[in-house]
C-alpha cells in the first residue's frame, strides 16, 4: 500500500507502508544507530516524534520480548529505506511490521532516507505527517504545518507512570553488560526514580548496581518524593521541551541539596533549569550510538548513546555552583555537569545504552558511591 510522508517545508516522499495503516503526526528526526531499532521504538523519549533510521535495512533481526525500553513502542511514526518482514535471530519472536501493526504504529519504507536526513540536518528537525489515507500532497503539507510544535510541549505528562511502583528486575539477558547475569540483587540503596518517560534499562542498571527502586509519576512533589526516605533520587530521561515541564523544575529545586541526585537526558536538562540555567533546541538534535563525549575530569573519551533535541546552555549556568564535566566532541555542547557543593550530577547522554555502547556505565557506580558517602 502506498504511503506518503509530508514535511512542513513542503517536501513529499512517496513510499510503501508497513506496520499500521492510517495517519500520524510528529516531529521528524533521524537516528544514526545501525542496530537497536526495537529499543529506539520503545524509548518514551521519542514520544511525539517520527523516527527515521539512517541505516537502510531495518527489520533484519525481528523483535523479541527482551529488548524493550517500555511496554510498547512510543514513537509517532517510523521511516526506513528497506523494511524486512523476514527476520533471522534466535531471540526473535515476531517481525517488526507485525509488532508495529499490533501496537498501531504507522511506518513507511522505500524512500530516500539519506535525502530526508540531509533535509533535517540542514533545515532542522521539523513537523511531518505520514499517511496511507490521504495521498494529496497539498493537504498533507497543510496537516504537517498545523500539527503541534515540539517547542513548549510537555510530553512527559503523557508517558510518565500513572502510579508509583516498585522495580526489582535486573537485566537477565545473556547480553547484560558488565555484570554477570546471575548476580543477586541485594539492594542496598533506596532510590526514587522520577519518571518523565524512563527507559527500562536505566531501571535495570540501577537495580543491578544494588538499588531498590520506587518509580514515581513526574508530578510528584518534593515532599512526596522525600516521604519515601530515599538514599538517592534519580531524574529520568523523557520526551519534549524541558522548559514546558514547569512542575518538575519546581520539585527539583526543592530536592537539590537534600539527597544525592543523578539525572539523565531530560533529567539533566531539568536540573539545568532548576539551577537557574536555560535550555535551547538543537537544530537537529543528537540521536545515535556513536557520539564522542569527553570526560573533562579524566580526559577519557566515551562513545555514547544519545537521544536529545534540547541542550543546556552553559553560559546561562551559575559557574560558581556547577562544574562542566562532559562535553560532546562533535559540537562542543554540554553533555554533563555536577554541583560544586551538593551531591548532584547529571549527563545529557545515555549511560544505560540500549541501544548503544556501554562505555559510560561507570556513572551508575558513581551514583552508588555518592549515596554511600551520604549514608556515612
Amino acid at each position, binding site marked *: 500500500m502506498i504511503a506518503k510522508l509530508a514535511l512542513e517545508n513542503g517536501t513529499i516522499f512517496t513510499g510503501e507502508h508497513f506496520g499500521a495503516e492510517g495517519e500520524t503526526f510528529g516531529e521528524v528526526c533521524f537516528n544514526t544507530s545501525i542496530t537497536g531499532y526495537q529499543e529506539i521504538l520503545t524509548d518514551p523519549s521519542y514520544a511525539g516524534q517520527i523516527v527515521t533510521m539512517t541505516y537502510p535495512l531495518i527489520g533484519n533481526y525481528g523483535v523479541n520480548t527482551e529488548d524493550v525500553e517500555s511496554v510498547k513502542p512510543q514513537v509517532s511514526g517510523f521511516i526506513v529505506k528497506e523494511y524486512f518482514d523476514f527476520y533471522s535471530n534466535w531471540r526473535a519472536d515476531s517481525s517488526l511490521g507485525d509488532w508495529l501493526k499490533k501496537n498501531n504504529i504507522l511506518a513507511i519504507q522505500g524512500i530516500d532516507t539519506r535525502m530526508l536526513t540531509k533535509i533535517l540536518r540542514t533545515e532542522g528537525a521539523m513537523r511531518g505527517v505520514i499517511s496511507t489515507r490521504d495521498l494529496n500532497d497539498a493537504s498533507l503539507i497543510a496537516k504537517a504545518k498545523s500539527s503541534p510544535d515540539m517547542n513548549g510541549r510537555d510530553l512527559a505528562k503523557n508517558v510518565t507512570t500513572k502510579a508509583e511502583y516498585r522495580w526489582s528486575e535486573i537485566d537477565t539477558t545473556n547480553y547484560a553488560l558488565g555484570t554477570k547475569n546471575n548476580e543477586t540483587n541485594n539492594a542496598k540503596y533506596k532510590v526514587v526514580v522520577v519518571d518523565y518517560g524512563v527507559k527500562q534499562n536505566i531501571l535495570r542498571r540501577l537495580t543491578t548496581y544494588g538499588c531498590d527502586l520506587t518509580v514515581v509519576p513526574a508530578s510528584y512533589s518534593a515532599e512526596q518524593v522525600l516521604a519515601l526516605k530515599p538514599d538517592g533520587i534519580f531524574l529520568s530521561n523523557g520526551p519534549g521541551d524541558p522548559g514546558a515541564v514547569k512542575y518538575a523544575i519546581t520539585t527539583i529545586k526543592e530536592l537539590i541539596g537534600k539527597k544525592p541526585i543523578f539525572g539523565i537526558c531530560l533529567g539533566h536538562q531539568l536540573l539545568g533549569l532548576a539551577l537557574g540555567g536555560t535550555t535551547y533546541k538543537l537544530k537537529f538534535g543528537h540521536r545515535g550510538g556513536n557520539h564522542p563525549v569527553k570526560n573533562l575530569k579524566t580526559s*577519557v573519551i566515551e562513545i555514547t548513546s544519545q537521544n536529545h533535541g534540547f541542550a543546556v546552555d552553559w553560559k546561562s549556568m551559575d559557574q560558581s555552583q556547577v562544574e562542566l564535566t562532559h562535553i560532546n566532541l562533535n559540537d562542543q555542547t554540554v553533555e554533563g555537569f555536577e554541583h560544586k557543593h551538593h551531591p548532584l550530577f547529571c549527563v545529557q547522554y545515555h549511560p544505560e545504552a540500549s541501544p548503544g555502547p556501554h562505555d559510560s556505565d561507570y556513572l551508575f557506580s558513581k551514583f552508588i558511591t555518592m549515596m554511600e558517602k551520604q549514608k556515612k
Partner: protein
Amino acid sequence: MPKRTDIKSILIIGSGPIIIGQACEFDYSGTQACKVLREEGYRIILINSNPATIMTDPELADATYIEPITPEFVEMIIEKERPDAILPTMGGQTALNTAVALAERGVLEKYNVELIGANLQAIKKAEDRQLFKKTMLEIGLEMPRGGFVYSIDEALKVVQGIGNFPIIIRPSFTMGGSGGGIAYNIEEFKSIVENGLIQSPTHEVLVEESVLGWKEYELEVMRDTKDNVVIICSIENFDPMGVHTGDSITVAPAQTLTDKEYQYMRDAALKVMRAIGVDTGGSNVQFSMNPANGKMYVIEMNPRVSRSSALASKATGFPIAKIAAKLAVGYTLDEIPNDITKLTPASFEPTIDYTVVKIPRWDFEKFKGVDDTLGVQMKSVGEAMAFGRTFKEALQKTLRSLEQGRAGLGADGKDHFEIDALSAAQKEVWIKNVKEQLRKPKADNIFYLRYAFQLGLSIDDVHSLTKVDPWFLFNIKQIVDLEAQLKKNSLSDIARELFVKAKQFGFSDRQLAHLWKTDESAVRAARKKIGIIPVYKMVDTCAAEFESNTPYHYSTYDQENESKRSGKKKAIILGGGPNRIGQGIEFDYCCVHGVKSLREEGYETIMINCNPETVSTDYDTTDKLYFEPLTVEDVLNICELEQPEGIIVSFGGQTPLKIAKALEANGVKILGTSTEGIDLAEDRERFGDLLRKNKIEHPKYGTAFSVKDALLVAEEIGYPVLVRPSYVLGGRAMQICYTTEALSEYMKLAVDVSPEKPILIDCFLEDAFEFDVDAVCDGDDVLIGGVMEHIEEAGIHSGDSSSVLPPFMLKEEKLLEIIEITKKLSYALHVRGLINVQYAMKNNKVYVLEVNPRASRTVPFVGKATGLPLAKIAAKVMVGRKLKDLGVLGFDFRKVKHMSIKESVFPFNKFPKVKMFLGPEMRSTGEVMGISMSFGASVAKSQLAAGNPLPKDGTIFVSVNNNDKTQETIGIMKEYVKLGFKVMATEGTTKFLTENGVDARPIFKVNEGRPNIVDAIKNGEVQMVINTPLGEESRYDEYSIGWAAIQQKIAFITTLSAAATAVKGIERIKQGKLNVKSIQEYHRSV
C-alpha cells in the same frame, strides 16, 4: 598528547611480494603511513622487496630500501640508518614476524630502536595461540575447546578430549592459515597435523573443536595511548565458520545482530584490545557465534592493520592505517580530525547508511588438480567490493565487479541452465546436483544458491545445506523471485516501478537485456528515456549527520544525487578491478601514477575502481573517486554525469581495454593510443602485415577458427607451437604443443573456439632468449624506459620469468636493433603513451613476439630500477604533452650502472599436488626485486626476497630431462662442484653426469624404493633442487619433490638457465656479506 618529539626517524617494514593472503592492502596501509608520518616531519626509512608498490616510490620516503625483508637485511639497514623507531604494523604478517625476530636477536636493543604501534609483548600475546587463549580465558571470554600440540601423539590426545569430528587444525605463525585444514576422520587428521607441524616455524599446531556452521563476525578496533577505544566497522561473513575470512563473502555492517548482541561483542573486542595490550593503532578481532543460542567465541585477533582493515577503511571512509600511524607517534584519537568531515574528531565510531559486500576472486583454473573446496586456508587471489543502498544491489554490483564474465547473480546467459527450459526429470537431476554442490563450500556456490531457489528449494532447505544465515538467503531469494517476475515482461511493456525495482535490486542492463531478449544498449536507451538513471551517494563516515565534501561516491537508484559536476577540465582513469594472476598491483601502480600526473597537469582526475585493497581506491589519491564496477554500464553512467575531456583505459590492464570500444561507441573519448591502434596490435593478420611492411621478423603464426583449422595451421608452421585464445592476459589457457596429439587434446579440452573467439597459433622458438621493452611514444619521439633480459628462455610466460635490467648478455648491436624496432613499432601503431614489446632472439636473430600499446606489468620495475617514472610521463603524453618539452629525452637506461633483477613469486605452497613448473601460462602472484652493483649479488638478493634462499654449501639434487642432458648442463654442474657442492641425482642423471666428469651420488626416485629423494629432502640432506621437467606432463615424482622442497624451504629450480644464474648468486654469497643501499642513492647515480 601531541606527537612524540623524542623520535626523529622511523623505519617502516612493508609486506614484500603479493602472495595469497597478503596483497595490495599493505601497499595501501604502508603508503598511508609513509605519507602521514612524513607530513608530521619524521624521517622515513622504508624496506620492501616489492618494486610494484606505490610505497616504494622514491618520493614517499627519505630512504627506500628494495631489499629482502629478512632480519639480516633489516639489521643492516638499522645499522646504516639508525632509526629511532620501527613501525611493524603496516606490513602484514611479514613485517610483524620480522620485528619479532629482530627483537629476539637483540637487534632492537643493540641499536636502541623502539617498536611503535604494537609492542613485542602485545604481538606475542596475539600471535602465540597458547598465550592468546590463556589471555582470553583470563578476561572471561571463551574460545573453542582444544589445545596446542607439538607432535602427533599429543594431537591424538587432544582429539580424545574433544571427542568428535570435525576438528580444525591451525599451524602457528603461518601466513593466511597455510598448512591448516579441517579433518573429518582420524586419518585425515593425522595427515593435516603432520603437514602443519612442518609448516609452522615453531612446529606448533592448534587442534580445536569445530565451530563449522557458526556465524562469523569481525570488528575493526582502534586504541590510543589514553586507552580510548573505538570500533570502526563491524563485518558479518556471509559464509559461516569454516571458510577463511579471506575466502568468504563479507558484508558490512553486521546484519543479523540485535544491539544487545552487537554491544556484547563490542565489549568483548574492547576487552581483547586492552588485554592484548595494543596501545596505539588498529587491530581486528574475529568472533564466532552459535546461531541457535548466541554463544560467542573469540577466534583470533591481529594486532596490526589487515586485509579487513583496508576493507573497513574503504567501506566507512575512515582511514584506519593513516590514523593508526598517527596514534603510533603519540597522538590521541580526539586530537586527530575526522578525515572526511574535517570538523568532528577521529574519536568517534563511523556509522554508515549503505551496505557493502566483498566477494573474493579465485584463479583455480590456473592450477590443474587443485582442490577448489574452501576451508581454513585462504586460496583466493583478489577481491572486489561494491556499495548499495540494499544488500541485493551491493551483492549484484560486486558480482559484476569480479569480471568473471558474470553480469550479476546469474540471469546473464552464463548459467548452467535456464529454468524454463528444464524438463521435470532434468529438474530432479539438477536438484540433486545443487544439493551436492552446496554441501561443501566452493568458489561458485553463490550461483548455486540462485539455482537452489529457482529449483524450488526453501530457505530452510538451503540453510541446512550451507549454514548461510537465512536473512542472506532471503535476500537472494528476493533477487531470484524478482528475476522470474521480470522475465514475464519485455522491454516494451515493463512498468516503470518494476524497472526501478530491478535496478534497486542491482540488476545490470546486461541481465535485463538477457531476461527481455534484447541487447544491453536497447535496455540502456529505454531506461534513460524514462529517466531511470543512477544517483551517486557520498561515503561520509556519519550517515549524513554532518556535512562533508569528500569526493567519494557510489551509485544507487534512489532520489537525490550528491555528486556534483565541477566546472574544471577533467579526465577519468579506469582501474584494474580485482587482483588476479596476470593483473595485479602493477596496474594499480600505473593508475595511481596516472592520477598524480594528470593532477599535476591541472586536470580534475577521477578514478573508477572496485578493488578495496588498492591505493587507487584511497579517496586521498584522486580528486574524485567512484567505487564502482568497471563495466560499460557503470562507467558510461559516470561519464554521462561528469562529461570528462577523455578517459584513460591503458593503465588498468585488460579490464578497461575490454570495454574501451563500447565506451568509444557511446561517445567517450579515449585518451592516448586509439582503440584502432590497440586493435591493430591485437589483430594477428593486420599486425602481421604491419610487421612485414616494416621488415620486422616474427615467429611464424596462424589463426584457427576450428579444431581442424588448428591442426592444418600447426602443420604449416611446424612443431612445437604455442597456442592460446585471442585477447587474454596472463597467458590464460596458453600452452606449448610438441605434437599433433597434444594440440588436438588442447583444442578439445582447454578452450571453446569459435569464429568470434579464434585460437592463435605461433611457432615456438625453443631455447631462444627473451627480452621486454617498455617505452613511451608521443608521435614525434620515443623514450625507451628500459630493455630487460629474461633469465628463463622464451616459452615461459614473461610474467613468471625473472628479468634483468639492463640486459646482462646482450650485445650492443642487438640492443640497438631492439631499440630501433621498438621505435618503428611505436610510430607504426601511432602510440600515444606506453608501449611494451616482447622479443625473442635465436641464432642472433631478433623476433617480435608481442606488442602491447598499454601499461605493462614491468612499468613499476623499470621505474624502481632506473628512477624514470614511465607511467607518469605516459599520462602527460596522453593529454598532449611532448616528451621533448617534458625534458626526459636525455634519459638513457644504458647508463644505469647497477643491476636490477625482478623475480616472480608463486603460490605453490598453498596448492599441494599442483605441478610447480613454469610454462606459457602465468601463475605467479607477485614479484620482488634484487638490486646491487653486481649481477651475482642481485641474483642472491632476488632469490632470498622471493623466499628461495640460495645455499652457500651442501648437496644439490639434480634431475634433468633427456633434452637437457647437454654439455651446457655439465658446464653448470661443474661450476657448482667448483664452489664445493656435492651432487646427488636420479639414476639416469647420475650416469650422464659421471660419464661427463661430474661426481654424483645416485638416489632412488619416489617409486623406486627407500630412502628416496623425498626422504633425503625431508632429512635435510639436500640444500637445493634442480629439476627440469619434460613437456607439460608432470609425474607424481616431480610434484612430490617440489612439495618437499617447499616444506623444507630450500631453493627449487626448474630451468637450466635459472640454475646457471643461481651459480652466480652463490658465488657472490660465498665472497662475503651482501650490502644495502637505498634506491634514492642508486637513482642519484643515473
